[in-house]
């Protein structure tokens, strides 16, 4: 199209020049004046036609001319840009008016294309961000590949960009680029860094040996100013380390080894290991350093915990462990949880580190407890519960070894016997073989990761001693604290936060406690369980140590004291043969603690557990004691909720079943104390079960309990009552209920469980539909007399009439008032409208005046002009 127009249009366009610029020379004038005929053709010149021809395209309007030029230029533009090695999209071309425009045109072009790159980068970054996070957590090959592809693309684009400034107009470009770069916000640079991180991480994951050097780069990211970048850097390094850390511990090379010439492969590996170790070290240092800063704390702790979980065997794990343990009692729930989980997993996966980590962790925690005087969060002791001790470890291996030895010996004995006849040479050869074998075995042992049983046993005993050291420390501390003379200022129920998990742990590991400690431990527990009973009941003579103040033991909650009893019993049970400790005191404790128990304040499940371990599990009790407990439990269930009652009744039943003689309590023996002990009359307030004289009592409670609102309780009660008729040898009454132990019974009927029971929406058939419809209805709640009075208070017709009249008047007046107000408002408004009216009028007048003035003026003008 342009070409065609080119043809049409006149080649040059002189008419642009204005007339004034035409300098007519004198000669010309002369010439034309002389030869007039020459100008003759001019006379016949059809100017219009020529004009039409010359400006055929452009003559429509000035605007159109401009547009035409523009178009023409635009068509030329691609050519120019091609010269400059620039891709120019015609769509992006801006209209050009001046020569300058060309330049502008091109540079804008450049910027635009760059921006385009940037935007693609951005989208790439977003992906990278997403995948970067993925990368940190799940390092799936596919994702990585995808990510890598994108990275490559991004790189290519970048390279393109890099090439671009090499174009001829470089100077301008670089200037513009600078500007643009400045314009790129911090966010974008953050994005760039993110990409970089992802790239390095990817490369590292792909080929750790080759790219191990980039770890340093990653480390540099952790020194960035932007905390966000630092966090990302830490996390990426975590991901990388998690992946590339070898499953063995890297050993420092000796000088001798360093001096030895090695193959290329070994050198490479050494280098890799060396670099890895060094950067790991500096990474850990960085972590420890950053840990002090609040913003990084969570990230750092997360990194540490994850590393500890992933590579507890690796070098420097002590540092990790120390860092984790330091935060194990953090007040921040998230951090504490993380640390606890990490330690727990350390305990659970001993295979990863061969138990060394466990020992170290336990020791560290023990130190922590010691350092903080047992004032830590209970969570940090709860981790001990995940410890596992292999009791058979030593025995089993020993046995195996013994067997081995035995067989070996046998063999050894037999073999030499057999092979004795052969020559000395053979013998020496055999010895050699044995020797080498032994060496190989030793080497293997040294190299192989799994420590031998002996070592493991040692470690286990170390762990145990550390654990029990902690436990005993806490107990001791609690005992001291419970004595007001030592720590008078501690108060509140949480003075011993660690006691509960400590007791729990003691209960769990009770079978591992050294017998030597037993006596001390028991006395400790005894003291803690509130041996002095701390009540106001008439203290009986059994109080040996009760010289201290009365309430001192109340520092511990009922649950804790119950736990003490439970622990004592567990210890006792697991060391039944070895120990000869009288647990009577603990029974006394339980007997009295039943009174201290408060639902919802104390943990019901602990009570149930105590009942189970102390009463339900036991084989047979002293008759006095059994009777006392039976009576107390029955009384107890009268005053407390159904779940507690159920637990108590389950225990009671078991007791009755085991102690057949106590069934006499179920019957009201008129004769009385045929079997009653020392105390003839039942003393409900006695603190010592032996002195309560419970055998003389009757379980009247059960009759009331059988009226209990809770069907299971009442059923249980009547069930127990029906035991009266059983012969001493008969036992089972109802197999479904007998199976319940106190803990189950407790959980069976907790409030929450009860609430789950839904109602049947059906209307029971016996409901009354409607009651009498007589005039004189009965009233159920309201006082009928009062209602009748209302009747009489109703005003008579006469008064009603008067009141209605009054009401009418009021209504009338109100309506009158409304009407009047309306009128008043209307008048007022009318008056106020007058102002408006006046104003309008004035304006009108003014406009009239103006108009007339204008008219006058016009007339004057006309006149003057004419």
């Amino acid at each position: 199209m342009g070409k065609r127009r080119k043809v049409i249009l006149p080649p040059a366009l002189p008419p642009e020049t204005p007339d004034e610029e035409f300098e007519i020379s004198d000669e010309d004038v002369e010439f034309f004046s002389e030869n007039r005929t020459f100008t003759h053709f001019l006379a016949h010149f059809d100017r219009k036609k020529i004009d039409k021809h010359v400006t055929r395209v452009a003559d429509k309007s000035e605007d159109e001319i401009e547009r035409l030029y523009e178009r023409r230029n635009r068509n030329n533009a691609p050519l120019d840009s091609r010269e400059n090695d620039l891709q120019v999209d015609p769509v992006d071309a801006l209209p050009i008016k001046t020569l300058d425009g060309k330049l502008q045109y091109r540079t804008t072009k450049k910027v635009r294309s760059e921006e385009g790159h940037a935007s693609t980068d951005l989208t790439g970054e977003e992906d990278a961000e997403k995948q970067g996070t993925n990368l940190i957590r799940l390092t799936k090959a596919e994702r990585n590949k995808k990510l890598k592809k994108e990275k490559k693309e991004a790189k290519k684009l970048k390279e393109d960009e890099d090439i671009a400034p090499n174009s001829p107009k470089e100077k301008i470009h670089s200037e513009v680029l600078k500007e643009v770069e400045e314009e790129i916000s911090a966010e974008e640079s953050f994005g760039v860094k993110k990409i970089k991180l992802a790239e390095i991480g990817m490369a590292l994951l792909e080929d750790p040996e080759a790219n191990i050097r980039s770890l340093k780069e990653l480390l540099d990211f952790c020194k960035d100013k932007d905390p966000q970048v630092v966090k990302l850097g830490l996390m990426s390094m975590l991901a990388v380390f998690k992946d590339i850390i070898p499953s063995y511990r890297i050993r420092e090379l000796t000088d001798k080894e360093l001096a030895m010439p090695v193959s290329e492969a070994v050198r490479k590996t050494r280098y890799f290991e060396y670099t890895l170790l060094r950067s790991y070290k500096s990474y850990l240092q960085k972590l420890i350093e950053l840990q002090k800063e609040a913003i990084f704390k969570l990230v750092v702790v997360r990194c540490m915990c994850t590393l500890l979980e992933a590579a507890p065997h690796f070098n420097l794990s002590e540092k990790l462990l120390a860092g984790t343990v330091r935060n194990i009692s953090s007040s921040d729930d998230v951090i504490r949880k993380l640390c606890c989980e990490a330690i727990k997993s350390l305990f659970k996966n001993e295979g990863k580190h061969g138990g060394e980590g466990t020992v170290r962790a336990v020791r560290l925690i023990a130190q922590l407890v010691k350092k903080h005087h047992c004032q830590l969060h209970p969570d940090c002791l709860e981790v001990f519960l995940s410890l596992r001790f292999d009791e058979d470890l030593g025995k089993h291996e020993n046995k195996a070894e013994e067997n081995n030895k035995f067989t070996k010996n046998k063999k050894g004995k037999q073999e030499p016997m057999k092979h004795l006849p052969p020559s000395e040479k053979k013998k020496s050869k055999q010895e050699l073989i044995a020797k080498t074998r032994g060496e190989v075995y030793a080497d293997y042992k040294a190299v192989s990761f799994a420590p031998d049983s002996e070592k493991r046993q040692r470690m286990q005993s170390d762990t145990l001693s550390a654990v029990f050291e902690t436990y005993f420390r806490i107990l001791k501390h609690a005992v001291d604290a419970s004595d007001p003379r030592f720590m008078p200022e501690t108060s509140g129920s949480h003075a011993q936060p660690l006691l509960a998990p400590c007791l729990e742990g003691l209960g769990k590991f009770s079978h591992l406690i050294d017998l030597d400690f037993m006596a001390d431990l028991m006395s400790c527990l005894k003291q803690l369980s509130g041996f002095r009973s701390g009540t106001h009941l008439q203290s009986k003579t059994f109080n040996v140590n009760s010289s201290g103040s009365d309430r001192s033991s109340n520092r511990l909650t009922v649950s804790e004291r119950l736990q003490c009893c439970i622990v004592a019993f567990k210890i006792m049970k697991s060391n039944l043969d070895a120990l000869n400790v009288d647990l009577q005191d603990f029974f006394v404790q339980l007997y009295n603690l039943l009174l201290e128990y408060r639902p919802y304040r104390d943990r019901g499940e602990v009570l149930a557990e105590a009942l189970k371990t102390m009463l339900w599990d036991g084989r047979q009790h002293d008759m006095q004691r059994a009777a006392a407990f039976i009576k107390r439990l029955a009384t107890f269930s009268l005053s407390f909720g159904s779940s507690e009652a159920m637990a108590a009744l389950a225990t009671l039943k078991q007791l009755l079943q085991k102690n057949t003689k106590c069934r006499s309590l179920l019957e009201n023996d008129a004769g009385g104390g045929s079997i009653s002990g020392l105390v003839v009359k039942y003393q409900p307030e006695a603190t010592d079960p032996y002195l309560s004289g419970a055998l003389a009592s009757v379980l009247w409670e059960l009759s009331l309990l059988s009226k209990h609102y809770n069907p299971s309780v009442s059923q249980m009660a009547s069930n127990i009552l029906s035991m009266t008729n059983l012969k001493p040898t008969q036992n089972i009454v109802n197999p479904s209920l007998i199976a319940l132990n106190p803990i189950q019974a407790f959980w069976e009927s907790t409030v929450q469980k009860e609430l789950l029971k839904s109602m049947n929406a059906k209307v029971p058939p016996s409901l009354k539909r409607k009651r009498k419809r007589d005039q004189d209805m009965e009233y159920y709640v309201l006082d009928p007399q009062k209602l009748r009075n209302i009747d009489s208070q109703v005003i008579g017709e006469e008064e009603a009439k008067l009141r209605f009249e009054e009401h009418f008047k009021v209504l009338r007046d109100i309506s009158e008032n409304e009407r009047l107000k309306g009128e008043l408002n209307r008048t007022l408004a009318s008056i106020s409208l007058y102002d408006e009216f006046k104003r309008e009028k004035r304006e009108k007048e003014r406009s009239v005046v103006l108009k007339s003035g204008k008219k006058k003026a016009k007339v004057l003008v006309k006149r003057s002009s004419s």
Partner: protein
Amino acid sequence: MAKKLGKKARKFARKGLQTVQKQKRKQRTFFKKKSAPRGRGLNGEAPDENEENLNHERNVSQLDQNVGGGHVFDKNIGNLLGEEDEVELEDDFSDSDGYLSEDTECPYISENENENISRDDTARGTFQEENTEIKMQIAKQKKELDKLLAKDKEFAKFLESRRSQLEQYDRMVSDDEEVEGDEEEEEEEEQEEQTRQPVTQTTLDVWCWLVTEDPNSPALRNLLNLYHNASLFGVITSRNEKSAQIVSHEVYSTVINFVLCEADGIFRALLGVAENSNAERILMKLKSSKEWLNVGPLVKSYFKSSIKLLNQVTDTMLLVFLLFRLMSSVVFLHAFSSLGRRLIKILVRFWSTGEDQLSTSAFLLMKEVASQLSSDYFNICMKAMYRTFVARCKFVDDSNLARIDFMKSSFLEITSLDVQQSYLVAVSSLQRLGDVVKHSSTTKKKEDLMKINNWQYINCLNLWVKFICLNYKENNLQQLFDKAVRVIFGVTSLFTGPRFLPLKLKCAQMLNDLSLTSGHFIPVSSLVFECLDLTGVVTGKMDGDEEPRLKLSTLLKVPGNLLKSRRFQEECVRSSVEVLCTHFSQWSFHVSLPELSTIPLILLKRCHEKATVESVRRLIKRFIDQAEQNRDFLQMKRDGVSFSPNDQTSIDNFLLLEKSNVKSSFTQFYASMLQNSQIRNMVK
């Protein structure tokens, strides 16, 4: 009356203020949405609710600690209501205009007589002065206007052009409350634009005479129309003077009185129903009969006008009068369900907000409606009442304790009319209450706990507990009983610590009630143990008696500053002793009372030792003495028997004689204790 007048005047004066108008217009858009379909039935309620809201806000600030912000409750209403299916039936008002076609034969006598219908100026009340004042002002302003008009001739024209604008002023004065009803009533009026001359006293007398002589007389229609007019009086007269059929106060009061007093008898006579016959059966019979076709519209008009009148009248005594008059003809409502609904709505409003007498009579009428008419009415009544109760029991203080009590008991009266129907509501409500507890016990979030620790929840729970107690004996409510006990124990399990003692005590009281009616044993004592542990830690000054007594009955959660005060402890111990007292007195003659009292007594003794406040000590000591006396007595008696605990019948018969004999000192002690507590919990 004067007070009422004053109130009305004040209200009216408020209307005049522009700011108030603006505000009202704003509010109206809000209320309109809600009440528009109900027509005039709820017109008056909008401002009422407003006031109520204000009251609540005040209460919130007062009780600040006690309640935890309104939002919780609002959310809860929906939850606690058993049903949300408030289906609004189409009002069948549109099908008739409320006027009955009149027989032209009926005489209008006003033309013939020169009765003085000019207004007498007696007892005009406060408006008279205002009106005359306004009149004077109008005269003054008019003069001025006239002056202006005279000054400028064109001004008149200008005013004419602005007429529409001026007329707005008229409307603004009067239309602020009646908007909802307007459309309806204006329609009505357009239809009855026919000749309606003013009725004079004489005409009315003649009509009345005619009607008394012969119920079939056409004058009855005229009378009812006049009654209808009377009911509209004051609403419409202000704007259009069309319905000024009633011009004198005598006519007004006579017609209302006459219709109210005689209508029931006349209708019955027309239908041929005896005064005291079983209404429903006859009504059913009549429903299709010829007479009903004639009488039906009359009755409808009567009710419609009466309902309007109920909305109009503000005087309590008049309302009571009206309600009592309507009571006798409640049977007829059966045919007009939407009217019935409207009436119930008005009644519920009166019941929940009206003065003592009014609310009682509203309740009585409601009961009549619920019992006489079909079960639909019963349902509507019950649900409306429950809903209103739930909405109004968010706050408890001295001022509304009696009201809530009354609402509770009157609701129970209604529900026990038809236990079967209310059972269903009770089941669903209790289920909801239980769900809230269940949810809270799993989440243990503060906001969930707040859903329980508020008066609305507790009042609802208490309401159903009372329902169970009331109907347990005659009906099989075991399921409800079980659920209620579980819910209550669930509630108590959620709150620990002395701060929630009032709540726990309330729960304990409810459990005691349930136990007493059902005869089941419910272990209540553990609920107050916490309270007993608390004694002895008084930190506050031993202040004198001037200090107002702390009322636990109006508290759910004790403010922290009171926790260790002397009076709180006093109240605490007193209330827990009362709870134990009820518990013991229930089982005071049961074989196992000695065991039942063992643990509480041990704790009480400890408490007695610890207590530092003399009054507390004395109280506990007395209780311990009496309980021990009871125990010793029983132990003594028990030693003499030979049956065993498994002999249930003998146990049931144990000390039956003594039980009926209430002379033993401990029984008397329990009784007096309980009486005292009742007196103490009454509103002072």
